[in-house]
Each structure stands twice: as structure tokens, then as C-alpha cells.
């Protein structure tokens, strides 16, 4: 009897089989492709901007110092770091940038964290109202708060301008430190990012298991000790995440320091770009280095962090701290008043501004003369300048504004769809392969653009796409590419967090039933984590609507709403900018409400659902 032994499989066959097995898993395919895409979209702009720092630009300092109009040189580095202007152009802006970022973190975490605690962990009154109203400053473009700040605190005696509202109505004149430069910049940015801290920290508070606190209470532990030894350590990961995210965002913010007269790396980038083009690119690289450092810190904090299980199956009950019968109303009232100024007052101020005859002329408030109000900023249908319209039609008839509005909606919808979908897939794929180094790499690369300052990302993509072969300046394509890359982390983090909560058994059961991957995704996984996934679409959409720092170098004013708004604000045409702000706020609120009604997801529930 003959027996036939199977020949040993060749290395090639084994390799092929391994490859086949690897690619038979959709998440591997996603990870591989996305790894390549993210590497290109992250590394290529960085390389482009590095090249720009070495290039000689005609008519700029490098051409002057080298006596050449083309070629490459190190003179930009030498001049930036060693010239007499190093302090003005580099060190002072760098210091201011760090102080601004730190101050922003402190304000946002204190304000956002305390409100998050009060809303989620106490029996404070009017929690729903406060929760909804608190996210308004995050909806509004950040510099509009800066403009409101100026309109509120400026005074002839201190700032040497016309009187702002407080000086005109009550004779209150705040000191210069309060009106201009670092302190108001920190305050305004802090207020802008406080809702972000509220969303992140509130998410943990909301889902936190109360057993530990209850046990401590039973053991008669003082309340301060419970707070410092139990509650705060449990929210520490969220606070760390918030610090890193807010720090990264605040560093690259351009408009607030620009309006409030603070010299930072981003404002310096813009002001130096005409004459010190290569040196400005070095500033962008420095901002990027901070982005990378923040990412590494994030990784470090993830690995060194103590592991707290915040969501367990043991107890879903959250015991709420009793603030007392009157306490719950008093604290709520204080919060209502506090949130009025950053959340509602700007909206009232915007609305009023669109009815005053001359930008900043609030005289009807103290004269009581209502004939000093006008609807011209809304209804003027002709292009006239004699009635103080500065050659613009009224908002309702202004083609520039509505063209920009359509452009913004188009860019935001495309960015949200692309970033949301890609991010969701990345989150899914990483969660399925969480121990793989490649998955971690993909996850980090997807997250890196978010940590890089917006202005630096915009600058890098401008350089990358302003070449002979590929010239995309002032096109929606460019804005969508950049917006998508920048906002993928919203969706990938949201998706990853929710996918990690999902037991693998659910999908495995479907795999055993031989259910195709597409069906598993659309019928099982996505419906279960619908709320988080929709947040991953909603946040890019909302952020994109009011994004300026990222897009300002990539298109002209009139192309999208934020650049148009900035243009009108810079020109001092506050009625138009206020009208645009109102349009933006209404758009976001309508979208949020619609999504909330249809899906149950909501902005104030935030990342991770």
C-alpha cells in the first residue's frame, strides 16, 4: 500500500497564506490603507514646510542675506535664532504662546470641570438649561468673544478708544491688563474651550460608578477627602486629555491673540510671512513640534496612567450630591448669570449690533432714542455707500455672505461625512487590533493633525498644494482635504472609545453565522454605537462651520463664512460680522436639534457619547 505524504509547504505558500489570512480581515485592510494614507497626509506637509524653511524666497530676508533669488540656505534658521530680532520674532511670541495655552487650559478646565461636576453629580436646579447653554461659546467662532470683550471693556480713559458698553452705561473703566493682551486672551480662549472640558470631563462624571464614593461616605470620610482622594483621581484621565487637547488647540489659535493684541507664534507667523517667509515657516515647525510633543505626552500618560474602570456592570446608579433646598437654586442662579456672559450676551450683542446705525454705536441704550436704530444692515438691496453701508448690500441681499454660507455648508458637510466615515472605520479597526503596533501607529497618525496647531497645518498644506503640478489654493477641494485630515480624530476617538466598550462576542456571533462584514457593520455595530458615531460626524461639522485658523491661509475672504466674518470684523463692519455669527449659531443649533431629534445624539453629550 502506497502512502503519499503531503509535501512540506514552501515558504512562499506560507507567506501567501499568511497574507491571504491577513487581508481576509477587513480591519487589517483598513489599517493598512489608512496607515499609508495618514503617513502621506501627515508627513508630506511637514516635509513641504521643512523644505520651505530652507528655500530662498525672492524679496524676503533670505534673498537679502544670501544675495540670491533662488536655491537653498540655512540662513533662515541662523537669522531667526541668532539675530538681534530673535527676542521679538521668536522668544517673546513663544513665551506668550505657552502662557496663553497654559492660561487657556486653567480657565477652561476650572470653569468647564466645575460646571460638569455640578451638572452631573449634584442635584442643582436647571441642569438641562445650563448644560445646553454652556456649549454656546464653543459653537461661536472664538474671536467673536474677543470682539465682544472689547466692546464691553474698552474705554476712552484706559484703552484710548471710544467707550465700550460698561464705560458708556455705568462708567466702569477696567485696567489695561484686563482689556488687552495676555489676560483677556487667556480668558476668552478659556471660555471658548470650557465647553470642551465640560464635554470630556462631564462624560466621565456622568458614567462614573458611585460605589467608591458611597463606600467612603459610609466610612464617614470627609467630603473634601472623597473629592481629593476618589473623585478627582477618577476624572484625572479626562482632565489630562482635556489639557492636552486644549493646549494643542490654544497654541495654534490665531484670531483671539490677533484681536486682543498679543504677540504669539501664530500671529507672528502671519505678520512675518511677507518679509520673513522662511523664518515664518520655522515658527510653524516649532508649533508642530509642540503638537508632536503633546502626542508623546499623551502616549506616556496612557501607558503610565492608573487604570480606572469607570463603567462597570455593578452599579449604574449615580448618587447625586444634595446641595440643599436653597443651595441648589442659589448655585444654579450663579451659574445662569455666569454662563449668560459668554453664552447669551454675545448673541444679544450680535443681534443689537445689526440694528445700530454705525458700527459700535450703542447710544440708543443710554439715550433711549429708538429712532437711532435701523434695519439697513439687513434689508438694503442696493450697492450704496452714502448711508454707511461701505459699499455692501444688506445681509439678506449680500451675495458675498450667501455665497460664503453655501461654501461653508458644502465644506462642512463633506468634511463631516469623510472625517466621520474614515474616523469610524479607523476606530473600529484599531479596536479590533488594539495590541498591534501598526494599529497604534495608525491611531497616533490619525490623531496627530488634531494636536498640531491649526495655523501650522494650514501653512503646511498651503505650501504643499501651491506647486506647479498641484495648485489647489482657494478651492473647496483643498479645504475639504485639510478639514477632513484635521477632524478625523473627532470621529476616530469617538468611534474607538465606543468600539472598545463593545464586547467582541457580539460581532463574533455574527461571524459564526457567516454574516458579511458590511452587514455586521450596518446592522449590528453602527446601530449599537449610533450616538457616539453620530457625534463623530457632528463635531467635525460644527467645528468646520466656524474654523478660521485652519482655513485662513488656504482661501480668500468671501470663499467661506469664517474668512468672510473675519474680514468684516477686521474692517470694523460689526453689523455684518454679527449677522454672520447669528447665521452660524442658528445653523448649528438647527442641525444639532435635528440630529438630536432623529438620532438622540447631541453635542453636549459629546465625544464618546
Amino acid at each position, binding site marked *: 500500500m502506497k502512502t503519499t505524504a503531503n509535501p512540506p509547504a514552501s515558504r512562499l505558500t506560507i507567506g501567501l497564506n499568511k497574507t491571504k489570512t491577513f*487581508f481576509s480581515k*477587513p480591519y487589517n*485592510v*483598513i489599517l493598512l*490603507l489608512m496607515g499609508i494614507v495618514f503617513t502621506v497626509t501627515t508627513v508630506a506637509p511637514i516635509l513641504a514646510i521643512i523644505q520651505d524653511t530652507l528655500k530662498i524666497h*525672492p*524679496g*524676503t530676508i533670505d*534673498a537679502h542675506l544670501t544675495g540670491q*533669488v*533662488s536655491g537653498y540656505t540655512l540662513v533662515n534658521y541662523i537669522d531667526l535664532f541668532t539675530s538681534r530680532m530673535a527676542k*521679538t520674532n521668536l522668544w517673546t511670541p513663544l513665551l506668550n504662546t505657552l502662557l496663553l495655552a497654559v492660561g487657556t487650559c486653567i480657565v477652561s478646565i476650572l470653569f468647564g470641570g466645575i460646571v460638569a461636576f455640578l451638572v452631573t453629580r449634584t442635584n442643582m436646579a436647571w441642569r438641562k438649561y445650563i448644560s445646553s447653554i454652556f456649549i454656546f461659546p464653543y459653537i461661536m467662532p472664538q474671536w467673536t468673544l474677543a470682539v465682544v470683550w472689547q466692546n464691553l471693556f474698552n474705554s*476712552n480713559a484706559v484703552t*484710548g*478708544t*471710544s*467707550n465700550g458698553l460698561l*464705560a*458708556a452705561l455705568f462708567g466702569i473703566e477696567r485696567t*489695561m*491688563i484686563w482689556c*488687552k493682551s495676555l489676560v483677556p486672551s487667556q480668558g476668552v480662549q478659556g471660555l471658548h474651550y470650557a465647553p470642551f472640558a465640560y464635554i470630556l470631563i462631564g462624560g466621565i462624571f456622568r458614567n462614573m460608578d458611585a460605589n467608591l464614593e458611597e463606600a467612603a461616605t459610609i466610612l464617614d470620610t470627609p467630603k473634601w477627602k472623597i473629592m481629593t482622594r476618589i473623585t478627582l483621581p477618577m476624572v484625572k484621565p479626562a482632565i489630562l486629555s482635556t489639557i492636552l487637547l486644549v493646549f494643542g488647540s490654544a497654541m495654534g489659535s490665531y484670531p483671539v491673540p490677533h484681536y486682543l*493684541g*498679543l504677540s504669539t507664534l501664530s500671529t507672528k507667523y502671519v*505678520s512675518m510671512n*511677507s518679509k520673513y517667509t522662511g523664518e515664518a515657516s520655522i515658527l510653524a515647525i516649532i508649533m508642530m513640534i509642540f503638537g508632536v510633543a503633546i502626542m508623546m505626552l499623551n502616549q506616556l500618560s496612557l501607558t503610565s496612567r492608573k487604570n480606572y474602570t469607570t463603567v462597570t456592570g455593578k452599579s449604574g446608579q449615580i448618587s447625586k450630591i444634595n446641595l440643599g433646598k436653597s443651595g441648589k437654586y442659589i448655585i444654579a442662579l450663579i451659574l445662569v448669570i455666569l454662563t449668560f456672559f459668554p453664552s447669551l450676551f454675545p448673541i444679544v450683542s450680535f443681534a443689537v449690533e445689526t440694528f445700530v*446705525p*454705525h458700527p*459700535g*454705536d450703542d*447710544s*440708543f441704550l443710554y*439715550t433711549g432714542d429708538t429712532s437711532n436704530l435701523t434695519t439697513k444692515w439687513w434689508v438694503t438691496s442696493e*450697492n450704496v455707500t452714502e*448711508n*454707511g453701508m*461701505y*459699499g455692501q448690500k444688506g445681509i439678506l441681499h449680500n451675495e458675498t455672505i450667501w455665497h460664503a454660507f453655501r461654501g461653508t455648508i458644502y465644506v462642512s458637510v*463633506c468634511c463631516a461625512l*469623510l472625517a466621520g466615515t474614515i474616523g469610524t472605520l479607523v476606530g473600529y479597526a484599531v479596536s479590533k487590533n488594539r495590541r498591534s503596533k501598526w494599529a497604534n501607529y495608525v491611531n497616533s497618525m490619525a490623531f496627530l493633525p488634531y494636536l498640531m496647531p491649526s495655523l501650522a497645518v494650514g501653512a503646511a498644506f*498651503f505650501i504643499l498644494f*501651491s*506647486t*506647479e503640478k498641484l*495648485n489647489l*489654493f*482657494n*478651492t473647496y*477641494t*483643498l*479645504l475639504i482635504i485639510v478639514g477632513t485630515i484635521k477632524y478625523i480624530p473627532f470621529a476616530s476617538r469617538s468611534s474607538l472609545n465606543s468600539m472598545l466598550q463593545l464586547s467582541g462576542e457580539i460581532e463574533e456571533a455574527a461571524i459564526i453565522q457567516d454574516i*458579511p*462584514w*458590511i452587514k455586521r457593520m450596518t446592522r449590528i455595530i453602527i446601530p449599537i454605537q449610533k450616538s457616539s458615531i453620530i457625534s463623530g460626524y457632528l463635531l467635525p461639522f460644527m467645528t468646520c462651520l466656524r474654523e478660521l485658523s485652519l482655513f485662513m491661509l488656504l482661501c*480668500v*475672504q468671501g470663499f467661506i463664512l469664517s474668512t468672510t466674518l473675519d474680514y468684516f470684523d*477686521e*474692517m*470694523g463692519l*460689526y453689523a455684518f460680522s454679527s449677522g454672520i455669527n447669528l447665521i452660524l449659531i442658528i445653523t448649528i443649533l438647527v442641525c444639532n436639534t435635528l440630529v438630536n431629534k432623529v438620532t438622540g445624539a447631541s453635542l453636549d453629550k459629546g465625544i464618546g457619547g
Partner: protein
Amino acid sequence: MKRIVAMLLVLCMALGLAACGQKAPEATAAPAAPAAPADTAAPAAPAEPVAEENLTETQKIIKEAQTMTLEELAKKAIEESNGKMFYGVGNSSRGKSALPLFIAYLQTIDPSYNMEFEWQQPKNNKIFDQLTADSLKDTGTFAMTLIQDGNQIESKMVQTGILDTFIPKDWAEANGTTAEEYKGFLALQTLNKVFMYNNTGSKTYDNCWDFVAEGEHGLYMDIDSEIVGKNFLYMLTEDTYAGWLKEAYNALPAEEQAYFQPTIKAMESEAADLGLGPDGAYALAWIKLLVEIYKAQTDYGPNCNTLVDKSATDQFGLLVYSKLRSVEESNSVSVNNVNVAAYTDGYQGIGGYGYCHYLFVTDNSPLPWTACAFIAYMTCTEDGFSAWGKDMGGYSSNPKVAEATENTRHHQTGGYVDGVSVYEAKNDRGYDWWTTDGKLVLEDPEYCASVAFTVGSWIEMLTKYSAG
């Protein structure tokens, strides 16, 4: 199957990133000119004779166009651009208002003519990046540009061959010259920025040194935001204007001179180091004092909004004169709350700064004939200039157009109501007055470019006023 679907899905999205959205606006006309060598030093002065064989296609067209009348150019434009798309880019938004008038003019020659257009107005100095990026294409997107800041135009746009000057025949004749003889850029208009102060208090400013006196903090658009504002400071170091500053200084009372004297003295060595003329120290002292005390504004609009408010007592600023035209009178806001410093009796010294909007054809223009015709239309006809001519404080470079505009618009009596001068500040005394009695400092692109890295770097070393 599933892996194919997954792969396709991800690939689609990756490709979709690049494919979605609008395409970059592309020229619809046939390629006209090869790409300009962006990184090589190109012919400098526009009027310098260049050998015929070295001319680019656009330069050849310009050479021919300079011998043609507006009507002849219009016919060429109709031939070239009928039914096409015209992209222009400029620092002034009013190119957008001028283009429909130009199209209407072409339609008077050929009623069937039509042209789509888009006018872009970049901010934050982005126009130079935009034109540089566009110059890399064989055929550019932009047909022409209306651009300010002679310094950067000279060093970044003209010396690099990105922009070409076209001198319309009619314009040259009106100025008593020819395209060959004329040296320099073609200006559409000169705009003036003038010193104004709020008059609701008792303070007056009758000497330009008053603006940099102790305790003053004038409103000034940040010199880093608007480079034209920095050019003003460069120009002050030129001999003529430095001389004006010295004259004004000499007219000050002795006690006021005493305050400025140490600074002027300290600047003498700096002026020598920078190679400035005999009065350079006065210019540097004035610049130093201004930079160290001015309150930076984002634009001239906020300056104007502030100064015309009655609560801005004793404040002053430098602002674009035409802004006054858009002030709406109310309880607290009035043009009568401000005085134009140079109109004050006995005022001594510089009254403001005059700078130009220049017109250029891009060297890779997709529609060079149309660009030339449009430029000729704006500089040679009252209608063509009307988008700017309706404002005071902007003066056509064509004397005939300037005269016709004044006859129609009556800017010199712009503050009159029913024959009575009600708003004194709005009575624009005109270009001739401003450039003589009004002592307007005029931008000279070549001078600005020559001192950009000497005086310019010195200015950047100064510690700017910091409110905080």
C-alpha cells in the same frame, strides 16, 4: 468578497478626499504664455527695453497693445474672451464693480459679447503668495491684478517676472508721455491716509510732532498687518520727507522741541549707520516715537468707528480718508466729531500718506488682450474709474479722468448740504493740494525696496507699544 468591498470602500474614500469639491478654477482660453521663471531674477524696470526674442508671449502682446487705442483693444478683447471666464485678483474689492461696466462697454461694440467673471480679494498679504503660486502654471488662472505695496511688487512680482506692466496709449498721452518713455508701474489711483483727530475735547494737533508727543497713543493699523503702512515709515526717511519733518520740528515751541531733542540726537548715529541723508535723524526719531506708542488696530474701519464717536475725546489716528464717506450720523457718531489735521489752520508737517493701486497683467495671463483692454478702460475712462471715483480720497492717475470725476462727483464740496458746508472734514481738497500744501508723503516703490532691509529691519527692532 468582504475584503474587496472593504478595500474598495476605503480606497473610494481616500480618493474621494482628493476628488470631491470644486475643481481649481482653470483658464478657459487657449494657453497664451509659457510659465514665468519664478525663481530667477527677471528684467527689472518695466520700461527697460528688452530684446524682442527675450519677450514672453504676454510681453509681446503688451508691446503691441501699447500702440492701440481703447476701442482697438476692446475689439481684441471681444475676439479673445467672448463667452469665457475672467479671473482677477486685487487688494481692492471694487474690481468686482468695475468688471460689469467693462463688459457693458464691450457690449456697446458687440451686443452679443458676454463674459463671466470672478474677482478675488485676498487679505493678510496673501495676494503675493496667490500670484506666486499661480505663476507656476503654464497658463495662469488670473488675467490681471490690481495690487498695492510697491515695495513687495518690485521685489516679489516684477523682478521675478510674474507681473508685466502695460501702459495704455490713451493714458500715456493724457500724461504727456509714451509707453516707451514712461518708467514705473501703471497706477490706477493714488489713495490717501490722513491724520485725523477727535475734536470733542479741547486738544488740537497743529504739528505732526504732536502725534508722537508724550502720552499720545494714536490709532494706527498695525504695520505688520498692512505693509503699506510700514512703507509710509520707510518713505519718511527719504530726504524730502525727512526735510519736512525737520521743518515741522523747527516750527515747534522750544519747550516741545526739548522733549524730542534727546531722541533726535540719539538717532543721529543710527541715521548715519543706515546711510540716510542729513535729516534722517528727524525721520528716525519720529518713527521710533510713533512705533513705540501707537495702538495697533486691525484695519482702518475700526479706527474710523472709534474716532467719529463723541466719546473718543482727544484721540487721533491715521486712516484712509474715504472711510469718512460711510459714516452715518447719529446721536453719538458724526463726521463733525473729527478734524482732518492737515486742514487745521497753521498745521505744520506731514498730513498723511499717499500710496497707489497698481495695475498689472500676469505674465501667464489666460486672457492678455482682455486684461489690457480692462486696464485701459479703468485708467482711461470716467466710467471705468467710477467704482473708485465715487469715493473721496482716491485720485485717478489719468489727469483727464481725475478732472471728469471731480466734475461729476464734486468731492471738493463733498461736505456741503444745500450749498452750505456742513461736514468740513468731507471737503476733499484734491490731489494737487494734498501733494503740495497738504504735505502728503508719496510712496516710491524703488525707495521702499531699497531700504526694506535697512530701515525696515531697524523698525522691526523697535519695541512696539504693548497695551498689556
